[in-house]
């Protein structure tokens, strides 16, 4: 499975400390040191704004379960959150994704993820599948641009065994050349499926144009040629360079004892390499955002699929909570939500039909906030009929300008409540989500934020903060645009760029 970043409410984090460790040790001085030396202090404050003087932490926030973290001698981190119940979600989070591939190895991170399920030194693929299903365990994995995740859902008595299975996969896979050949077909088929999904294509193209010349601009699946030419060596190179103890976090959420889990992890993953080696080691190429557009016009298609993005702050940035609030303020229009036309989220009600035309301008629209360790994309993706494209585009730009000039306390408060509710609801939706949240925060921030801190950071965002951050990110800034389909009515780049600022309001 591939996953193109976190397109919905994004509470993902990425640590500068970690993301920079591996690459900068090779090529640059440690960037984290630069920040602490004060060179970038203007860019990076420790928190985004002072809390109101009378701010009280809700006592209910202090009754939530704790996250315990231990760093093993080899640098691997282990985090657990203990909650009652019978089932446990175990995840292995690795700071490695398509961004860390070599040019000719693009696609290996994802290819590798498939190969781990294809048999190890101790068991064939069939035996492996049987063993997993025999205990009612579920395994899954995904690869994104900056991380690869493997997770298992098991009953609490099987936690130790699930760790053995994960370590067997990650450390002892055979990568049989014949299985690699077979898997090429599957991945090419997956690629075909992905290419049918306009949204995936538009976002891949968006990364391609926004981060042209940088590895972040490449796709996760890799090019067709790369898949066809994938070799065992390329896969092994990638593992040796990236599957390193210090870049791995092992997480458990559910009824587990922290110390016991740490012991089990240190036994199961004792053989994890501690230093990157081989030709797969790359230095982290910085991602430069380039204002540009990419259009795949096809007048035979019924609809236009358009994404417009600005460069937003990196995931660790103190303004990240403000961007999350802005994402909630702009909202998403789901056509199945029949009350959208009355929504208090202006962009949603406008696109849903509360406009002079009196009908919906788009079929669906979504505000995305995809953040990476040193950059990010914030914008709107929509699907519309050709005749409505220009008007929808205009409406969207106007809403961004409203954030810059006239974000009001009322709208900000509304968005904050919704954001908190969404965050909490997401964590309540499964232990896998809790596990995912812990793992991503550990990889991105190098620590887990307490819910109290997260709420405080959101509470610290007020209307002036939103206007300031919106001005920093959107006002008269270059945009990256990716469009596909029946897009003859999408205005040219200069028109679009001109609408990122305004003389009125």
């Amino acid at each position, binding site marked *: 499975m591939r996953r193109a970043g976190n397109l919905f409410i994004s509470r993902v984090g990425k640590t500068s400390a970690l993301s920079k460790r591996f690459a900068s040790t090779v090529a640059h001085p440690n960037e984290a040191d630069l920040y602490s030396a004060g060179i970038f202090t203007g860019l990076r404050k420790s928190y985004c704004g002072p809390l109101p003087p009378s701010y009280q932490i809700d006592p209910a926030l*202090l009754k939530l*379960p704790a*996250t315990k973290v231990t760093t093993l001698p080899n640098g691997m981190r282990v985090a657990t959150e203990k909650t009652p*119940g019978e089932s446990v979600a175990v995840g292995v989070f690795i700071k490695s994704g398509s961004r860390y591939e070599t040019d000719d190895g693009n696609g290996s991170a994802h290819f590798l993820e498939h190969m781990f*399920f294809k048999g190890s030194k101790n068991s064939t693929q069939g035996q492996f599948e049987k063993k997993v299903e025999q205990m009612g365990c*579920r395994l899954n994995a995904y690869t994104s641009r900056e991380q690869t995740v493997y997770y298992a859902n098991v009953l609490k008595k099987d936690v130790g065994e699930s760790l053995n299975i994960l370590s067997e996969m990650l450390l002892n896979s055979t990568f049989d050349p014949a299985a690699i050949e077979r898997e090429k077909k599957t991945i090419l088929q997956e690629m075909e499926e992905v290419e049918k999904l306009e949204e995936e294509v538009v976002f891949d193209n968006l990364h391609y144009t926004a981060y042209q010349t940088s590895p972040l601009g490449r796709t996760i699946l890799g090019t067709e040629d790369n898949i066809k030419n994938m070799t065992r060596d390329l896969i092994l190179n990638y593992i040796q360079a990236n599957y390193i103890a210090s870049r791995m976090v092992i997480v458990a959420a559910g009824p587990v004892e922290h110390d016991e889990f740490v012991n089990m992890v240190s036994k199961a993953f004792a053989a994890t390499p501690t230093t990157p080696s081989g030709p797969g080691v790359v230095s982290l190429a910085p991602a430069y955002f380039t204002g540009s557009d990419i259009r795949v016009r096809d007048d035979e298609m019924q609809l236009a699929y358009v994404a417009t993005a600005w460069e937003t702050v990196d995931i660790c940035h103190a303004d990240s909570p403000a961007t999350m609030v802005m994402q909630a303020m702009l909202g998403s229009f789901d056509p199945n939500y029949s009350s959208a036309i009355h929504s208090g989220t202006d962009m949603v009600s406008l696109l849903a039909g509360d406009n002079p035309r009196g009908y919906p301008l788009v079929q669906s629209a979504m505000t995305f906030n995809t953040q990476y360790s040193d950059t990010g994309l914030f914008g709107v993706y929509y699907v519309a009929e050709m005749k409505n494209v220009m008007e929808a585009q205009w409406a969207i730009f106007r809403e961004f300008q409203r954030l810059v000039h006239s974000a009001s306390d009322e709208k900000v408060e*509304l968005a904050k409540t919704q954001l908190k509710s969404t965050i909490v*609801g997401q964590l309540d939706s499964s232990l896998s989500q809790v596990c995912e949240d812990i793992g991503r925060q550990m990889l*991105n921030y190098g620590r*887990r934020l307490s819910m109290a801190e997260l709420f405080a950071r959101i509470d610290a965002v007020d209307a002036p903060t939103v206007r300031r951050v919106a001005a920093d990110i959107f006002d008269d800034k270059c945009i990256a645009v990716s469009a596909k389909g029946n897009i003859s009515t999408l205005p040219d780049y200069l028109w679009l760029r001109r609408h990122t600022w305004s003389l009125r309001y």
Partner: protein
Amino acid sequence: MNMPMPGTPSAEVGAAVSEPTTKVSTLPNGVRVITESKASMGCSMAIFCATGSRSETLETHGASHFMQHLAYKATVDKSHFGLTRAIEKLGGHVACGSSRDCITYAGECLTSNAGQLFGLMAETFLYPRLEKLDIDNARTLVLADIQNSMKNGAFAVQDVLHTVAYQGQTLGAPMLCNPHAAEMMKGSVIEAFKQTTISPQRIIVSAVGVDHDRMVEYADKAFGEMQPRSVSELVAAQYGGGDCRVPSEPGQVHLALGFEGMPCTAKESVAAAVLQSLLGGGDQFSAGGPGKGLTSRIFRNVLSHPEILTATSFNVSYKDSGLFGIQATVNAHDAQMAITSVAEELTSLRGGFSEEEVTRAKNMTISALFLNLETMGIATEDLGRQIMYYGSRKDGKALAAEVSAITSQDLQKVAKQILSSPLSFAAYGDVAYVPSYSEIVALTRA
């Protein structure tokens, strides 16, 4: 974000969380309230009413489907605009679903807003505005639903299967409103449906993450003044079996072979659930690794034919009946071959099971059970439905113990019992190549 915010606690500080406790209360008028505790800032609540398409009569057909689309729109006191804004302001996520035997209003929000959101949920359930404009708006959505359901073959074939299994009555009554009835729908029909099927003793309030006494208070405020009504008794479902084919778009055909399964009140329903895990199934091409049932029988024996695009076992249970079988999707001309393969799988259930596969099916059932209960919304639904069907609640551990106790003899017994009922066969889509009913019956007798 990588540095702690001064003045806020670290994530390493937290409270020990105790095992969840479940409490049930009954209001004087018969409304039942069930809650489960959870250490979270959020909560999930639901109102269940044991009514649905099976309670509709010829006169009220389609009313429950309309009620689903009247939910969270205008109420007697509030406009659609007002209600939408009120829910948004609470950060609420709401949904409404009507099914054959139940209509559900669900909501999630921060626990601090639970009381207010529950008030709005109850308001939209009890007092939807039924003027012409409201009905017209709902009609648009109902008709769109009908359109969409026709494109969703997997859903449509199940609906057809229910129709044929229960002869169009009770559980076999169409779940969605008929397009003609939709055109004719009036507020008075919905009012009549509400009067004849909604009564406090049929209402259940369930919640996860809300204090029990608080929830009782909210429920009492919303439903306390309702007077018990004499509502029409539920007509017991009569399983019949038979054959029904609904032609639609050319290309693919969706097939379902079903037998009378176990009602969820029967003690054999646990064995039927294990039997379903044992059959398993899935898509020819789907995401996910081991654990999705790669070693299940359907995966190994049916999906090994690349022509069969999807094949899954199903086990639907209602209070007084249920359906068990396999459904599959294939290109039209592969219908014969798919039916042969599926029928073979069903008949082989008579043949017994290896210990290994029984253990696997049991473990998969148990882990699926707990995995589902992790989701707050599903846990809330589970609380409500158990009260609705059994009048009491069994927690996950008790159910898991029942699953563990199942033996291969139990499975074989229940398999034989299921397969002894007359076959229900449904096809939806390009039905041109589907063999005759008697041929299919012969295949399942083998």
